[in-house]
């Protein structure tokens, strides 16, 4: 008896003690409101952000994803970099813009003086050569190797099967790479064709100077802090897998960062990350549509909201090779009959409707505000459908829309279904499949679904990476099966054009053709909203950002938090 009642009073005591403790510490906690007063930048500032999930790899020559590149580019610097305002390539580790050979095929870069790795040893042209060579190496099997195929010999070597080819064959292919080092400072690349966009490729992570001695020493684990030694603004000092990565200032970088430390924690749940931000455990956090109402209802949070455009265009893919979408009129009718603005306002909440502009999103070189070919116009759409060769046939009934099953996608596709039903009078049947199955379906022309949702995000800010890479008939990322000889000829001409004005013009015409042909229906451009504490300063947001202020890391700092 006694024991029992003892147990209960113990429990009660526990609860009461908890409440009291809560009450006591509650008061100061709720008033942790930053003063936000403009102060000097703290020379030993620290920030914490959320990396979301653990990056699969941070090996610059293997990786391809935003959350992976976001780690590499803290630690490494490529030959070129992107200007945070214009997104045009500017010198990074290179002293100046490269010298071009008279035939326009060879690019020669000279390194800045006194470049050092974070351990103090010098960076040489050989290190850059090693980085690019690794990118082309078939044994490394990098996911972004294709970006370097423009270098002579890279594609031939990279597409060899390292298990079948003999060592002699592989070495012979490697020896043919169009790369030459001259002394410690000079590296030149010979390209397969004229490619004015090569400077942008030279700014990518695939060409950063991974150091041969580190890769050899660390083997599969060279990306751990001990051997992940770079030439960039920060160094990786700690990586607790699935928990956090810690970056500290690299004192050997030519411009010292104002931040002493940048910790990236890995919180998967957006609600938890949001709570951590409000708790001052994070200095910035991305917000999802589900947090928007909370943010908008709170004056402080609202003032801390940053809107940034994104680097992706999301489109409705039509299988151009299959009836009824082999008829341009049908494609255009579908493209003109859903209200993109309503979608952003009513459903997505975040993002920018593709009401103006074609395939290339705003903020990106080549964005064309005046391309309104696919403007929402139900009357015109109905007329187009009536004129199409499939008008009043069964082919237009119950068209399957395949998508990667998720709650978000279900809402999206059902919204589209509704739009086409109302505005065009056609029935579309949503067809959910699991995400990996979806990818395997859309990658092959034989299995490409009739209609699907897909997107493209820039690898580098250049029209070539949009128009040629995605919609040229030889592209391996084309999922809609668009084939047009005029379009192909135009983009290939622009790819090689050294004159920026005529190049832009040719791309613009090609891009308009794409919209007029309704190869796909541009739906919306990605965008991000994030919250940033008032003391987190010096960030230039760009549409290409894979990390806060990544193109100008040394400018970032924090004012004293109190």
């Amino acid at each position, binding site marked *: 008896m006694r024991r*029992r009642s003892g*147990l*209960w009073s113990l429990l009660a005591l526990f609860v009461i003690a908890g409440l009291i*403790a*809560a*009450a006591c*510490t*509650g008061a*100061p*906690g*709720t008033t942790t409101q930053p003063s936000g007063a403009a102060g000097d930048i703290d020379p030993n500032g620290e920030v914490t952000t959320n990396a979301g999930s*653990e990056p*699969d*790899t941070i090996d610059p020559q*293997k990786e*391809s*994803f935003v959350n992976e590149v976001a780690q590499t580019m803290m630690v490494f610097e490529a030959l070129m970099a992107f200007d945070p305002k214009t997104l045009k390539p500017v010198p990074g580790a290179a002293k100046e813009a490269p010298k071009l050979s008279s035939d326009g095929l060879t690019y020669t870069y000279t390194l800045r003086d006194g470049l050092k790795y974070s351990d103090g040893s010098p960076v040489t042209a050989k290190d850059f050569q090693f980085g690019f060579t690794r990118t082309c190496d*078939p044994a490394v*099997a990098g*996911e972004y190797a*294709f970006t370097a195929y423009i270098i002579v010999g890279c594609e031939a070597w990279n*597409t060899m*099967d*390292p298990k079948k080819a003999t060592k002699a064959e592989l070495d012979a292919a490697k020896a043919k790479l169009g790369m030459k080092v001259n002394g410690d400072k000079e590296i030149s690349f010979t390209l397969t064709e004229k490619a004015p966009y090569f400077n942008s490729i030279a700014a990518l992570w695939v060409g950063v100077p991974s150091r041969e001695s580190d890769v050899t020493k660390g083997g*599969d*684990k060279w990306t751990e802090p001990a051997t992940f030694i770079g030439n960039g603004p920060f160094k990786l000092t700690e990586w*607790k*897998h*699935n*928990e*956090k990565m810690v970056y500290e200032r690299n004192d050997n970088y030519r411009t010292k960062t104002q931040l002493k430390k940048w910790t990236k*924690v*890995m*919180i*998967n*749940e957006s*609600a*938890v990350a949001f*709570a951590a931000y409000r*708790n001052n*455990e994070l200095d910035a956090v991305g917000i999802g549509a589900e947090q928007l109402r909370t943010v908008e209802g709170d004056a402080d949070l609202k003032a801390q909201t940053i809107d940034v455009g994104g680097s*992706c265009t999301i489109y409705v893919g039509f299988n151009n090779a299959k009836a009824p979408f082999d008829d341009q009129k049908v494609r255009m009718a579908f493209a003109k009959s859903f209200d993109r603005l309503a979608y952003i306002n009513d459903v997505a909440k975040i993002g920018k409707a593709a009401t103006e502009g074609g395939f290339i999103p705003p903020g990106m070189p080549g964005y064309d505000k005046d391309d309104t070919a696919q403007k929402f116009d139900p009357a015109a759409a109905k007329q187009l459908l009536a004129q199409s060769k499939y008008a009043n046939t069964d082919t237009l009934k119950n068209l399957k829309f395949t998508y*990667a099953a998720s709650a978000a996608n279900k809402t999206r596709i059902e919204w589209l279904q509704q739009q086409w039903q109302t505005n065009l009078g056609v029935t579309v049947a949503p067809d959910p*499949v*699991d*995400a*990996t*199955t*979806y*990818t*395997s*379906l*859309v*990658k092959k022309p034989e299995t490409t679904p009739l209609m699907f949702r*897909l*997107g*493209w*995000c820039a690898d580098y800010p250049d029209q070539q990476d949009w128009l040629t890479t995605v919609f040229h008939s030889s592209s*391996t*990322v084309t999922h809609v099966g668009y084939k047009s000889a005029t379009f192909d000829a135009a983009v290939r001409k622009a790819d090689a054009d050294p004159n920026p004005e005529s190049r832009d013009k040719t791309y613009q015409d090609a891009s308009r053709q794409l919209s007029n042909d309704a190869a796909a229906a541009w739906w919306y451009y990605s965008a991000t909203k994030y919250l940033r504490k008032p003391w987190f300063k010096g960030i230039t947001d760009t549409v290409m950002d894979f990390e806060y202020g990544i193109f100008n890391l040394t400018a970032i700092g924090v004012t004293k938090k109190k």
Partner: protein
Amino acid sequence: MLKYTIRRLLLLIPTMFFVAVIVFFLAHAAPGSPFDAKSVGDKQLPTATIERLENLYGVNKPVPEQFMLYLGNVARFDFGNSFRSGRAVSEIIGEEFPVSAQLGVQALLLALALSLPLGMVSALRQNTAVDYGSLFFATVGTTIPSFVIAIFAIYFFGVTFHLLPFVGWSTPLHWVLPTVILSLGPMAFLTRITRASMLEAIRQDYVRTARAKGLREQVVIVAHVMKNALIPIATIVGPATAGLITGSIIIEGIFSVPGMGREFLRSILGRDYPLIMGVFLLYAFLISIANLSVDLVYGLLDPRIKVSK
């Protein structure tokens, strides 16, 4: 008993083999490859790249051939490397399993420490306020999903009152919320089981006999009722232990605990075959060991259950 244990341990080999066969073929039966899975999202890798990677890692070979290769490697205790991260499966599990195990053991101990007394008390004082209170707790604990409680706990203890941290696993203070919330489900469940089996045991003839012999009430309860009531509890606790120590997808996800629970889901969605195999073989092994322990404990609790045949 020893012979029985050895025999059961030997039986583990064919069990594990069949688990391996089933999981391997099921995993490969799902459409897509690990490199398709890497492409999930708005942006996809070029088809040529995906195909080259598939060829290089041998995932385009016939599945039986891949399975034989896998078995050969496992026989040499090589569980392969994750396709996604390239890290060794043994290393990933070696890092994550201890975290999940610690969280699971803490939660289990907490659950047992509170549920056994609570269940017993409510059985002994059936239909009193204590009993109703414990029933209420048990019903609430089983019906409200842990993620709901977790989010409330984060807002209450973390954001509003700044009492406890809720991101990560770095200090003992970080352990509190995930442990307590993970224990609530099993705690509620065990309370009900304990109460039910105590009630059943109390009504048995041998209890009446014990009382008729004039034994003291404490002796009757402890030696006759409790010991017999423990059998159904042991049946539940065994597999529950295996489930708890291999990690909870939800709790680890919410509290950013770097454990193995999240790996279950992630490896399947990512078609990361070596990791799927590693995670599931470990799980199967632990379940088998837990069941064996339960069978052995039966013998101790009730001599009528003979384990040695």
